[in-house]
């Protein structure tokens, strides 16, 4: 099962931090409070968009043609993502 990383507290909707990391080989566990990097706090859809953006060398035109949408539609998605990131940075 592909588990989804929870980004918000289910109780109060505040952002979550990482408190435990485990080595997959020897099962050593490190505990502490680590804030999640900004990119990891994006939704799955937005993270996929960032990956696609990098893989196409930042060409919105190429992304639009691959997704079979118009250039402004893809450009609008990027603008929305930029707005989301700016809002997250302000918090």
């Amino acid at each position, binding site marked *: 099962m592909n588990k989804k990383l929870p980004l918000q507290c289910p109780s109060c909707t505040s952002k979550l931090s990482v408190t435990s990391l485990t080595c997959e080989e020897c099962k050593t566990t490190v505990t502490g409070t680590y804030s999640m990097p900004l990119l990891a706090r994006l939704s799955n859809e937005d993270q996929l968009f960032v990956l696609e953006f990098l893989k196409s060398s930042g060409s919105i035109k190429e992304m639009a043609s691959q997704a079979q949408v*118009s250039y*402004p539609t893809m*450009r609008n998605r990027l603008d929305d993502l930029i707005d989301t990131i700016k809002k997250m940075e302000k918090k």
Partner: protein
Amino acid sequence: MNLSLKLLVNPFERLAGYTSLWIGILVGVCSIIPAYFFNARYDGVLDLHFTSHVTLTKIIIDQLANLFSLMFVFSIAGLLVKGNTFRLVDVCGTVVFSRFPFIIAPFINMGGGFLDMQSTLIKPTGLAGLSSTQAMFLFFSTVFLLFVIVWYVTLLYHAYKVSTNVKGWKAIVSFIVAIVIAEVLSKALIYSI
């Protein structure tokens, strides 16, 4: 919303830029032909009127004034509301393409029936002067023209929204204001040339 309905209402998610600009120019040229043969004038961005005689020059001036007004006002509205984040070619391409429903509208006056009905309506007898066939024609032509104008305005709204990325209530308010200004500007241009 299924794909074919979405394409009718908002084709701009898939089609914009130069492609829609070239198709739109072709649409604009094609719409001149029925307008000329069925005596229709597009004398305003939201207008379609039938007259007893219309010249090719007038139709072309109408079309150019309407397109310029819409492109100019939408670009200014986009700049004011969203800032300089959109391409002018997307505004132009989507606006030109939005005029598509106006290709079919002049056909309502095929054989001069609409104009005859119009001249009967302005007589003192008004609605009472219409024959039963004319009354039926009035009903169907009103429904048809209403459909054309609603489709056209819906396309224009999506053209504005997709090309400038203005969203929510800002999109609705700025679109209404822009359409009213474009209508006034187009009328001023058409009747001053």
